[in-house]
């Protein structure tokens, strides 16, 4: 019997969209050879099914089990290369997505995997750091700190033990690119971590994965096992030991000092810096803590050279950014593009405008601590400097669009309640400020607020911004205050007359 090879994503969001049901039904059909790949990240098209065509893969969108006959007949497919959402992207870190089987090490290698590590092995640790300096890579987790500076500190620190830690506590609501990397291209993350280990002289690594990502943790464990069996974790004479550790649902554990506390098994409480983890981190040893996306960006930098990466994007924001579109856009999904495009362009070109029947109200960039932008401010370029100048953050690249049914007072209350729930309690501005902020917003919501409450909220926000120990308290006022700034009537309309 002639069998047809069909490609279907095994990514968590693809499964949530219905890919699992297709796999279940089709696995009973002998004429189908089902290959489970990563997802291309065009989630609005999932479940998406592909097969090989004369000019590359062809795809069928939003597939139901009954669509199998036309897929097998080859009727109605769209060449993947012509899908605008994908064609207009610049995929480097996400180049393998939708193409390979996540745990097939040979496929990873065939598509250029491990070249970065090989290049790093031919360089001195100092030269690796120099390549990163040339690349202009800044940490992708939110803080946007130059990666080379951090690595240089850890490299120069004298210690018999150093650590590399991947921050996979992707807690910003609206972000999912780290989950995609761990589930979809795990060897890229391992390779990035190994390059770091070589650069700083670390022999032990941890991947701190959030509790909400069981599939990602499992994929990483499998990939580490495979890498170990293939002797990949042996680097020169040293072996690199890598372990997955699962957290237990604390947002603030995405902050590096809190993450290290949690990794040591304690309450994930933020610590004052200095000392920075690069000097004194896990078990007081020099430790590089970087986000998953940051590590996954590094293999290409070493393979193609720092100058290659430094030629992409804008001054101050080099390379590509993984934007994650969500909320009420028509086309939610992962978008990798060089820095510099405006927010409006990104929302129109990739987001495809609003979901059917929805009207734009505001967009939030950078997770639950990110500022809100009204329609009039969408022409801001997506890069670190422009966002910093506007008092906003790119954060981890989450972009959530709200429609005109969104109640801004309720949304603002939600943000403050989130911080009150997630505050680690270490510093007073965040611990007490977030609770008081939530109470004020609840008062306004119930119609008992006064003009003085708005003044108080603003004052409280400024205190939290300037006096909090970490970004949770320091950023928490931004979505609230930008909501009041751009939609004042919604708040004033609720005040007691």
């Amino acid at each position, binding site marked *: 019997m002639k069998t047809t090879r069909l490609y279907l994503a095994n990514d*968590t*969001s693809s*499964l*949530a*969209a219905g890919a699992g049901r297709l796999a279940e039904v089709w696995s009973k059909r002998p004429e189908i050879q089902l290959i489970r790949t990563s997802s291309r*990240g065009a*989630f*609005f098209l*999932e479940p998406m099914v592909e097969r090989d065509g004369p000019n590359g893969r062809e795809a069928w969108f939003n597939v139901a089990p009954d669509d199998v006959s036309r897929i097998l007949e080859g009727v109605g497919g769209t060449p993947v290369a012509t899908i605008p959402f994908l064609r207009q992207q610049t995929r480097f870190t996400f180049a393998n997505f939708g193409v390979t089987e996540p745990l097939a090490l040979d496929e990873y290698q065939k598509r250029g995997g491990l070249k970065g590590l090989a290049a790093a092995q031919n360089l001195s640790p100092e030269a690796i750091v120099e390549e990163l300096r040339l690349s202009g890579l800044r940490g992708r987790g939110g803080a946007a700190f130059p990666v080379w500076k951090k690595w240089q500190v850890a490299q120069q620190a004298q210690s018999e033990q150093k650590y590399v830690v991947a921050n996979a506590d*992707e*807690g*910003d*609501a*609206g*972000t*999912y690119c*780290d*989950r995609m990397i761990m589930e979809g291209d795990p060897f890229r993350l391992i390779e990035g971590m190994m390059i770091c280990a070589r650069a700083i002289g670390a022999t032990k690594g941890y991947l701190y994965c959030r*509790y*909400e*990502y*069981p599939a990602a943790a499992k994929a990483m464990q499998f990939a580490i096992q495979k890498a170990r069996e293939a002797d990949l974790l042996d680097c020169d004479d040293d072996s690199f030991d890598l372990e997955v*550790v*699962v*957290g*237990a*649902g*604390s*947002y603030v554990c995405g902050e590096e000092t809190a993450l290290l506390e*949690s990794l*040591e*098994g*304690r*309450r*994930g409480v933020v610590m004052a810096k200095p000392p920075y983890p690069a000097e004194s981190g896990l*078990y007081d040893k020099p430790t590089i803590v970087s986000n998953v996306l940051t590590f996954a960006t590094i293999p290409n930098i070493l393979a193609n050279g720092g100058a290659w990466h430094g030629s992409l994007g804008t001054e101050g924001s080099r390379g590509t950014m993984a934007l*994650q*579109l*969500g*909320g*009420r856009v028509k086309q*939610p*999904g*992962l978008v990798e593009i060089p820095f510099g495009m405006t927010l409006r362009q990104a929302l129109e070109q990739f987001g495809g405008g609003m979901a059917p029947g929805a009207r734009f109200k505001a967009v*939030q960039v950078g*997770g*639950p601590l990110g500022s809100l932008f009204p329609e009039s401010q969408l022409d801001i370029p997506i890069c670190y400097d422009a966002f910093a100048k506007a008092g906003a953050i790119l954060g981890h690249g*989450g972009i*959530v*669009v*709200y*429609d005109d*049914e*969104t109640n801004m007072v309720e*949304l603002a209350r*939600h943000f403050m309640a*989130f911080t009150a*729930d*997630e505050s680690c309690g270490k510093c007073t501005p965040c611990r007490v400020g977030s609770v008081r902020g939530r109470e004020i917003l609840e008062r306004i919501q119930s119609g008992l607020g006064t003009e003085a409450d708005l003044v108080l909220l603003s004052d409280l926000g400024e205190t939290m911004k300037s006096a909090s120990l970490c970004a949770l308290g320091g950023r928490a006022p931004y979505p609230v205050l930008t909501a009041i700034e751009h939609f004042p009537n919604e708040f004033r309309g609720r005040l007691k007359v």
Partner: protein
Amino acid sequence: MTTRHNAKLAEALESCRPVSPAKPNILKMLLAIQSALGHVPVNTLPQIAQTLGVTEAQVAGVLSYYSDLRTQLPGRHLIRVCMGESCMANHGGRVFRAIQDHVQVAVGEATPENRFTVETMSCAGNCAVSPTVMIDEDLRGRVTPSDVPSLLGPYK
């Protein structure tokens, strides 16, 4: 306490006995016990503290800090409704209310016949296919309020 319960507890305790006395990992221990027993019974705190060589207060501190650690056994099926921003923007709040109307139980408590416990979660990383509801290990996306009865039906 059944013998089986005690055996599982002993195994979890043993698996997290610190290799080095300087590095007792309380969180790892609590997760191991929760994985074995479905929750961390408060009466196990003395044993945990003793095995790790830390105080009961330190164990209790970690136990109360992390929202995914639980001291009560949930219902047979745990429903977690995502309250992340993308789910909120896509009116996940309506899904949450529909689920609450359907199972008629307060957040965090088990239904009378112990079938369901409903909780919220802050983000499942399923934002592009939101709103999201997680039932046990199954993640569902693009859930609407009218899906709720058929969604919960198979979980007996």
